[in-house]
């Protein structure tokens, strides 16, 4: 819950708004968003359904151009997708005509890295997501959790400066989900990655993030940002149950109240 | 005729009544300037059939092959076709008989070669492509032309309809074709003939457009068949007496110029009933005329070509080429 000042700024969103469609049929999805993402942060975004979480991510990824305001990365305006900003989608977009290996190698290959390096990277990250050994399989042979792990490995293989994740575990069942949370927490810690993570599960956000951004319902605005460190506590204490304490429920209830007020 | 006695069976009665005359007659016709076209144009069908309360339907076929299909399905009672198609009809056991020869084909069907093609004799066609509508009289004659020249193995025949022959000719895809009028005239604008059906007829390869009728129909209504022949004969008389007038009638019916029609008609020979009853054509029942032999020869040739499975016997052709209705028609006129 501290020491944010030292951190190096990576992405800066300045007074950004996003409107879909034109004139009568237009939807104001995002309004006056100001947000700074620092290097090494794990930011979770929470908000009611349809509030514009995905839209925010798309703006950062460069998939959508903001209607006003700008998204800066290292001070330069984001202009289209880029391998420095990796994206993990809710349903994994693995390419079924490629093997797991080929999927993970896709990014490095696109960047024309030397073959040997590509192989090393692939092996390292498949290992990182505990999937070494299934590289020859096709992706449709994998379970949902395994698919999402391959998708994460594929994104990490590019050593992106930030990983954007849009409800990556939303489609997984509760148990697999827990495993995946642990996995991503470990990866974040080990590789010192910067992660921007969308979820609609308050617990997930609190157990992963060191900053939780809560958004209002449409048009999406940032209502409040919470600095939390339960994820560090879990690291330190090695277990999850210990953090279900007063502190935790206090923050959780506050967030829940905010969101409920949004819906009412 | 026992009307009262048969009171209870009134349906049977009415059908017998109807049987004395059919409700309608279906004629399969070709779009050529022949006696039938003139007869229709002059209203002879109305005179001989319509006035008796019979509905007359004329159905145009593009070829005798189509007419045969219609005959086989029982859709039509009379059909005009080339004699080769009439042979197919007999060979395929369609229950029909041949009752009339509309015209003996002559210069109106010919082997045309394109100017500048360098084809001077038939033998020059060796190794070339010649277009002809398959299963037609022209097909039969062309095969014989090539056979006579001894090059039947060396010429590639193309199966094309007349319109396609013109198109291919103009495009230069083909330089020789055996076809009939009015297509022939279009080809001859930039070509000449090497031989025609008249020359071949002189050599014994006679072809003709003939009329066949369903036997069931003819046996039930022989008088109507005779009436048909009378209509043809009357129409033929117009041509014989005044060809220009006949061409005008036929031309306007077909939507072509009288001159074109006349040219086409002149390429053929129209025979009177008496001529047809001579030994050259129908002959008599006891002494069949020569046309049955022509048909038999043609049939044998078609069998050799595998166009028909089995060539019917001479006896079958004698029976097939039936002079009785022409005789009846003549007798009717004498009675009148």
């Amino acid at each position: 819950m501290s020491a944010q000042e030292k951190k190096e700024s990576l992405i800066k969103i300045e007074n950004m708004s996003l409107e879909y469609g034109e004139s009568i049929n237009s939807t104001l999805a995002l309004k006056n968003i100001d947000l700074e993402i620092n290097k090494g942060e794990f930011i979770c975004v929470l908000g009611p359904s349809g509030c514009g979480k995905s839209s925010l991510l798309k703006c950062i990824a460069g998939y959508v151009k903001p209607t006003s305001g700008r998204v800066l990365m290292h001070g330069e305006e984001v202009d289209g997708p880029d391998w420095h900003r990796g994206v993990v989608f809710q349903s994994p977009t693995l390419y079924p005509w490629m093997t797991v290996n080929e999927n993970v190698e896709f990014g490095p290959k696109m960047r024309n890295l030397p073959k040997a390096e590509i192989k090393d990277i692939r092996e390292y990250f498949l290992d990182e997501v505990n999937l070494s050994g299934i590289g020859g399989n096709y992706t449709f042979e994998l379970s949902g959790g395994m698919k999402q792990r391959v998708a994460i490995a594929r994104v990490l293989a590019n050593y992106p400066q930030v990983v954007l994740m849009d409800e990556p575990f939303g489609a997984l069942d509760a148990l697999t989900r827990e495993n995946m949370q642990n996995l991503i927490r470990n990866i974040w810690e080990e590789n010192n990655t910067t992660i921007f993570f969308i979820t609609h599960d308050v617990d997930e956000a609190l157990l992963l993030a060191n900053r939780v951004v809560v958004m209002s319902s449409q048009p999406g605005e940032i209502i409040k940002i919470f600095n939390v460190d339960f994820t560090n506590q879990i690291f330190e204490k090695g277990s999850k149950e210990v953090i279900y304490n007063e502190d935790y429920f206090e923050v959780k209830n506050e967030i829940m109240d905010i969101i409920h007020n949004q819906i009412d | 005729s026992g009307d009262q006695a048969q009171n209870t069976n009134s349906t049977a009665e009415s059908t017998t009544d109807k049987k004395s005359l059919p409700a309608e007659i279906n004629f399969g016709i070709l779009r050529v300037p022949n006696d039938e076209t003139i007869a229709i144009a002059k209203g002879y069908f109305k005179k001989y059939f319509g006035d008796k309360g019979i509905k007359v339907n004329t159905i145009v076929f593009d070829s005798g092959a189509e007419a045969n299909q219609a005959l086989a399905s029982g859709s039509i009672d009379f059909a005009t076709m080339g004699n080769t198609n009439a042979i197919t009809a007999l060979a395929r056991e369609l229950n029909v008989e041949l009752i009339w020869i509309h015209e003996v084909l002559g210069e109106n069907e010919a082997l045309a070669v394109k100017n500048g093609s360098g084809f001077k004799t038939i033998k020059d066609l060796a190794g070339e492509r010649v277009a002809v509508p398959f299963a037609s009289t022209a097909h039969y004659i062309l095969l014989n032309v090539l056979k006579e020249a001894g090059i039947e193995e060396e010429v590639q025949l193309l199966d094309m309809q007349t319109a396609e022959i013109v198109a291919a000719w103009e495009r230069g895809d083909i330089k020789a074709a055996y076809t009939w009028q009015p297509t022939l005239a279009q080809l001859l604008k930039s070509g000449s003939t090497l031989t025609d059906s008249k020359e071949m007829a002189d050599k014994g390869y006679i072809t003709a457009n003939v009329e066949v009728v369903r036997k069931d129909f003819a046996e039930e209504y022989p008088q109507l068949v005779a009436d048909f022949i009378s209509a043809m004969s009357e129409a033929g008389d117009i041509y014989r007496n005044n060809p220009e007038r006949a061409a005008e009638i036929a031309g306007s019916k077909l939507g072509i110029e009288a001159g074109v029609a006349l040219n086409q008609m002149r390429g053929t020979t129209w025979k009177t009933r008496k001529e047809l009853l001579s030994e050259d054509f129908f002959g008599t029942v006891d002494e069949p005329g020569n046309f049955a032999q022509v048909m038999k020869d043609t049939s044998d040739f078609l069998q050799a070509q595998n166009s028909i499975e089995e060539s019917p016997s001479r006896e079958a052709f004698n029976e097939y080429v039936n002079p009785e209705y022409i005789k009846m028609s003549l007798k009717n006129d004498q009675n009148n």
Partner: protein
Amino acid sequence: MALNNNEEDNKVANSAVQTTNQNISRKTPKNKKNKTEKTLTFLTWGFIFFLWYVITKLNIFTPTLLPGPARVWRAFLDILANGYNDVPLWVHLGASFKRLFVALFFAIFTAVPLGLLSGYFDKVEAVIDSVVEFYRPLPPLAYYTLLVLWFGIDDTSKQVLLFLAAFAPIYIACVSAVRKLNQDFVLSAKSLGANQKNVFFKIVLPASLPEIFTGVRTAFGVAYTTLVSAEMVAATSGIGWMVLDASNFLKSEVIFVGIIIMGITGVIIDAVLRFIERRLIFWKGHI
């Protein structure tokens, strides 16, 4: 928990696939026909043949209207031995299939790029689509004469006719494939550093392959249906021409032989195409 993944790894291709297939699995038995159904199909054809045999035996119809099985069989053997019109049967089949496959080949190589481009760029579609939509429903025989006028009587016009028949289904399949394309595939590829060209060849093309292949199969079917029309003009070979010529001489048994040959080859070729499809697009249904 992250430790026990190896166990899960061994189950690769197990639970996940099965659970997603649950709804489908109910129907899989229908694909693999069981014995009863095979017997029924067999009986159906047996019954058809029996009926055919009995009807012809009863002499209700003349052999021209309905040739008996024996007659058709003899005609088949005769054509097999002596060919038709002095041309061996395999030459007829060869001529037809050459026309078909040349047409199909050109259709694939023009319709696939044009279709993909149309799906990709609205402007390209605006140019091509309405033209395709206009000619597609036209009966081929309506414009065949024009093709003969323009391309002559040789195989070219026949191939153009078959090409036009085959072009539209492939083109439409390609447009729809790109349209249905999961945009996240494209976006994720871009975020992984793929340029426009790579996106097209590594993502759009393979992702569209299943539908393209379905389009090719449809195209083959449509072209096959057009085969007889194509062989109406100036042909003296081809299985379609054989049937037409037989029609001219009322050789019903040859028509039957032609129909049976065409029916069986049609079924065989579709089976071959489906086999290739399964091999080539193994991931179909997993997209």
